[in-house]
């Protein structure tokens, strides 16, 4: 089994239609495969059989190599890619449905969803009017960069727009796996404990933005917002925080503006790269014709 995504094991299935199917991955890939190798012998005694060899390689090096390939692809096509992480039931899919309903009229949007089973989420997103693709991770507890690379072979890239990657509902494992996204967005709902930022500190430390969802339910639940935000900032002093209700629409404007800003930045960065390349090409032409 592929250590990163389970390729060849039939455990993972990518579902662009309405039914799941298993398939092996024996075909060639068009994205980069990075393998860090290099072992130097640290000590070697001819008198003893065993010796130490240095490896010095990150355990996640393979995933990170695929993530770097995804990131290059996103940059080349001005795609603002977000990795949305949360516990199950935080309202990710409702939030995304409402988000793509608005933004699809402004720029291209697409959604990759990860769940252990079913294509329900992708169906909900498609019903909201955006291209969506479901990755079923089988028993896997997170999405990884390799499976995103495969998904992008089937899902048209939202060039100059935004790709939302809805990770498996899990506040632990997805924290470690870089998918090539611009940043992680962690979603917490007020029906959960206000101390989740402390309980799942690695995830809140890894995120750039936290969305506190379902604020319309605050009158009915015991949830101390101020304490929750204090815990979140304790774990990650740089964390941006927005409060909203995807159901009622309260606070959605600030979130949509945040996405628009990120999308515009991605396009601006691409323009900068292209202008630099154009200037270099013009300089070459000027030199060769002089």
């Amino acid at each position, binding site marked *: *089994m*592929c*250590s*990163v995504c389970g390729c060849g094991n039939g455990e993972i299935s990518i579902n662009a239609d309405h039914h799941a199917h298993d398939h092996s991955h024996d075909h060639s890939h068009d994205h980069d495969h990075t*393998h860090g*190798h290099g*072992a130097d012998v*640290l000590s070697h005694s001819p008198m003893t*059989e*065993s*010796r*130490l*060899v*240095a*490896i*010095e*390689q*990150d*355990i*996640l*090096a*393979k*995933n990170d190599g695929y993530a770097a390939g995804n990131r290059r692809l996103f940059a080349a096509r001005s795609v603002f890619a977000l990795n949305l992480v949360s516990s199950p039931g935080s309202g990710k899919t409702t939030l995304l449905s409402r988000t793509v309903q608005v933004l699809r009229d402004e720029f291209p949007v697409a959604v990759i969803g990860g769940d252990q089973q079913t294509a329900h989420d992708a169906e909900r997103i498609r019903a909201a009017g955006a291209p969506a693709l479901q990755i079923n991770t089988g028993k*896997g*507890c*997170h999405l*990884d960069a390799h499976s995103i690379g495969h998904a992008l072979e089937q899902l048209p890239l939202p060039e100059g727009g935004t790709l939302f990657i809805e990770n498996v509902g899990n506040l*632990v*494992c997805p*924290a*470690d*796996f870089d998918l090539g996204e611009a940043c992680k967005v962690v979603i917490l709902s007020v029906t959960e404990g206000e101390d989740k*930022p*402390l309980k799942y*500190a*690695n995830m*809140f*430390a890894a995120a750039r933005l936290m969305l506190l969802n379902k604020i319309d339910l605050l009158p009915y639940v015991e949830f101390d917002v101020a304490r929750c935000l204090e*815990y979140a*900032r*304790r*774990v*990650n*002093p740089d964390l941006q925080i927005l409060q909203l209700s995807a159901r009622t629409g309260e606070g959605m404007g600030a979130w949509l503006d945040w996405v628009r800003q990120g999308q515009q930045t991605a396009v601006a960065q691409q323009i900068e790269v292209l202008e630099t390349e154009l200037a270099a090409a013009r300089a070459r032409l000027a030199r060769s014709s002089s």
Partner: protein
Amino acid sequence: MHELSLCEGIIETITTQVHQRGFKRVLRVWLEIGELANVEPESLRFAFAAIRCDTIAATAELEIITLPGRAHCLDCAQTVAVQQHFDPCPLCGGYQWRLLSGTEMRIKELEVE
């Protein structure tokens, strides 16, 4: 239980090294795991013992070196030791610190024959 995925990555790296460099046997695997890494060393040991069977590392022992968490505190401008993401600065009690190291997850070296 992403420790299992991590262990599969470790086994794959070992297998690649063995094939490339012609080692006969892997006796020991040394990992460096940061104190604030998102991994439970005991789960890692358990997962490694479970999946090393029928691999080139079937008899390999896992050794884990814990690397300390170090942070720069913006309030007191000192480098301090931290064990958790939500620890206060041990000098000033504030939370305005940036992690310098402590989330490493690395295969450091192998003891081979």
